[in-house]
């Protein structure tokens, strides 16, 4: 059995983060900090509030993928998979909302297109959730879902969100 140990951490008054302190397999801690990080410095857009959220997002996604890909029979890790998936999904929603709020605050000209792309992606997530809720919570489907999340987030943060940073820098000059 896998057991994940979370710790609540208050980031700011309306932002609550969870840190994973450890992952225990049969009582033994199998957690290794480094391998859970998918974050790269080049993903930074130069806005601290957004960069922190992106880091958190990649961290939660890494946690999720790590559990999905761990060498443990699917049935035994099912609860952990569900837990880390919900944990990540929650944060996707929170982050998209806050990033849109931020875009509004800075009068970002491409906000409508960006919102549309967020909405489309959220819809894709809901479609998977629906499949999962209908009982098809299989290893194959969850693997497919996590792979899509990974590639989508890398592209979105690496490309589309960079334009927010560019706009902020241009405006600041």
């Amino acid at each position: 059995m896998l057991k994940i140990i979370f710790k609540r951490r208050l980031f700011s008054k309306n932002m609550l983060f969870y840190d994973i302190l450890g992952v225990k397999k049969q009582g033994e801690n199998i957690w290794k900090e480094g391998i859970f990080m998918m974050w790269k410095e080049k993903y930074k857009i130069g806005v601290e509030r957004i960069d922190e959220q992106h880091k958190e997002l990649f961290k939660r996604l890494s946690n999720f993928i790590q559990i999905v890909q761990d060498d443990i029979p699917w049935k035994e890790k099912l609860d952990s998979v569900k837990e880390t998936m919900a944990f990540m999904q929650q944060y996707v929603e929170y982050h998209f909302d806050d990033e849109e709020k931020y875009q509004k605050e800075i009068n970002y000209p491409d906000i409508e297109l960006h919102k549309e792309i967020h909405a489309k992606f959220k819809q894709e997530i809901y479609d998977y959730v629906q499949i999962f809720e209908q009982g098809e919570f299989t290893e194959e489907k969850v693997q497919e879902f996590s792979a899509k999340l990974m590639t989508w987030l890398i592209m979105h943060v690496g490309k589309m969100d960079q334009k927010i940073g560019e706009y902020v820098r241009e405006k600041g000059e």
Partner: protein
Amino acid sequence: MKAEYINSFYIATQDVFQLMLDLNVARGDIKVLEGMVSGKDANVVLGVTGDLKGTILFGFSNNMTLEMVKIMSGMEMKKIDNFVSSALGEVANIIGGNALTNLSTYDYACDIAPPQVIIGKHESISLANERAIQIPLKTDIGEFDISLFLSENKNS
């Protein structure tokens, strides 16, 4: 086969590999195929519709596929399971999408169908009767290729 197709796919591949994998991509000599390709370890097929009609086929080796997913996820991948093959399919899909955006600057409006991933070397893949071209590509983690089976469909 027009140079615009080749360039659109080559540039899209370079952009996506740089962004997602931190890898440079170099191009080898273009080959002409006769409608059949011997499949590689991991293949991704993308259908194209619109002003251009046909199929794009990506072929990767086992090792390169595992290495690509390792770079993206930061985790060691042991075998090509559904996570690895889905991630590979998405990378090809993103390249295809970017290539179509590049092609739109030449006034081609196209769409792509969701990627199909075919694992297994034993299959040879027959895609069209028409001649096709293959773009061999090289990176620090291995070689792969993209085959384009495209015909113009502009009278519709």
